[in-house]
């Protein structure tokens, strides 16, 4: 009896949450896939016809936005790594007793709503705001100069909003490095550059990988930053999907685009994982 109970225990524990995820994560994905192959309109309803041409049309209509999103995603992720690494490095190795405080300061933005933070940037960067107005007054900038509405503003917003997600995993990886390993490298007459390249960097890579995983997907599929900080020439695929669902009520196209986006991002992440070795993926997945 007790034995049976013990073997059943994990299943009973997993069951309620597992069912929830099945019902509200897996099933909806299947529903969406089905809807992407249906035809009709919102007033008269949709019928499954296996109309895969929706994909072709959607992709050809919105490839610009899809490609732009991926480009923004890649650029933002690279900037994130470059910006995050030195800060994570310094906190991990020189933060001393105040490490927790520094990390806490880096996490401060999370105590303010994502939407509100982004809107706040809009207020700061606005064309005639307290930042740009004075520069225009003294003639340093032309009157119609603007930061908002440019790709730079959107990528800047993305980097801002996701920076902590890059700093933390890199920090965790660096923090785990045993100082003695580096010491050993030095004892073996490694130059500083070699020690960094051969010892620290490889050990930090899983952190970078985790960071990329935590940022690339949400950055590429984001629509808030481009909506608030961008313009008509920075439209990202997330905005298209959002608008197809929640404005045009064009469900099949929206579903097809969602699926395409998912597929592209997954392929991107997995080929990245392949390049780095699958072990790291599993390590991250198991964390």
């Amino acid at each position, binding site marked *: 009896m*007790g034995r049976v109970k*013990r073997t059943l*225990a*994990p299943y009973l*524990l*997993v069951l309620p*949450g597992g069912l*929830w*995820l*099945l019902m*509200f*994560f897996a*099933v*909806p994905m299947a*529903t*969406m896939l089905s*809807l992407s192959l249906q035809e009709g309109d919102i007033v008269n309803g949709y019928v499954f016809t296996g109309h895969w041409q929706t994909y072709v049309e959607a992709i050809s209509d919105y490839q610009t936005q899809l490609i732009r999103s991926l480009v923004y995603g890649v650029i933002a992720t690279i900037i994130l790594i470059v910006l995050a690494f030195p*800060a994570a*490095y*310094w906190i991990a190795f*020189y933060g*001393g007793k105040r490490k927790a405080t520094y*990390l*806490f300061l*880096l996490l*401060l*933005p*999370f*105590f*303010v*709503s994502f*939407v*509100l933070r982004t809107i*706040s940037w809009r207020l700061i960067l*606005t064309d005639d705001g307290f930042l740009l107005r004075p520069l225009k007054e003294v003639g340093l900038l032309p009157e119609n100069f603007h930061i908002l509405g440019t790709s730079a503003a959107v990528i800047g917003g993305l980097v*801002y909003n996701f920076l902590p997600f890059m700093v*933390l995993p890199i920090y*965790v990886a660096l923090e785990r490095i045993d*100082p*003695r390993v*580096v010491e050993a490298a*030095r004892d073996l007459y490694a130059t*500083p*550059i070699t*020690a960094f390249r051969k010892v*620290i960097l490889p050990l930090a890579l899983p952190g970078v990988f985790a960071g990329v*995983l935590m940022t690339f997907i*949400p950055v*590429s*599929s984001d629509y808030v930053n481009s909506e608030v900080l961008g313009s008509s020439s920075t439209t990202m695929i997330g905005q298209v*999907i959002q608008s197809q*669902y*929640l404005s045009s009520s064009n*469900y099949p196209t*929206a579903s097809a685009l*969602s699926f395409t*986006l*998912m597929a592209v991002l997954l392929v991107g*992440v997995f080929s990245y994982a392949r390049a780095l070795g699958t072990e790291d993926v599993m390590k991250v*997945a198991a964390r």
Partner: protein
Amino acid sequence: MTQAPEAPVLEAPPTRTVKVRKKFGGVQFMHAYTWLIILWLVLPIFVMILFGFNNPSGRYNQTWQGFTLKWYRELFALDDLTSALILSLVVAVAASIISSALGTGIGYALGRYRFRGSGSMNLIMFATMSSPELVMGASLLTLFVSLGIGLGPITITIAHVMFSISFVATVVRARVITLDRSIEEAAADLGATAWTTFWKVTFPIILPAVFSGFMLAFALSVDDFVVSNFTAGTSVTFPLWIWGATRVGLPPQVNVMGTLIFATGVLIAVITSIRSRPRKQTI
């Protein structure tokens, strides 16, 4: 930049607690750099707080026009903003309670037992944590629409529980893995049933992790915009209200509420970190 990370490597890591001999400016540079990053991260928050004290003459709170405390006094003057905030809090409490319960079950099982299907469970959790929010929200919308389920607070809560479970489970699993099994065995040796052992011994030990998971779920829920936008129907949560109000100028009360939420969050975080030493891995 290329020099900065390399220079201190040799000296610092082996001597973490020792003052760094300075031959390079690299360390100082990185110190200043880190502060610069922090300032950059905090700047919009500062602006948000500042404009909660602004006294705009019109309905557009966009240029500084004088100091006032009146928005703190009139914090709840906008009924629909207040009810949006209340809805956000209600949904967050419900979602974090449910997801803590469900997530703890999963996290405990994954950390404590080896069983068939644990791999797929890990994979699903990984999938929910890494899928684009947009796609999750959209797919839930299609599910609810196909089933003819009207959208509202219940569907928002369902969605929030869905994306929070995995985070709670991950936090709890991390704690359970490090659990010293001998304590449980000792309890069993002393005649405690499995049930008693769990509630009297194991649960108190993992409680801080469950609490962290709860707080994480709460924070994710309160802040969520993307998924809520798809599953809210006519209900309006705090982030959704802000989103809607930006079209016509955000009233300063939003800044005040943002400030108060910020202050409360910081306060709770500081108190909990003082009470129990912060765990290194937060996510």
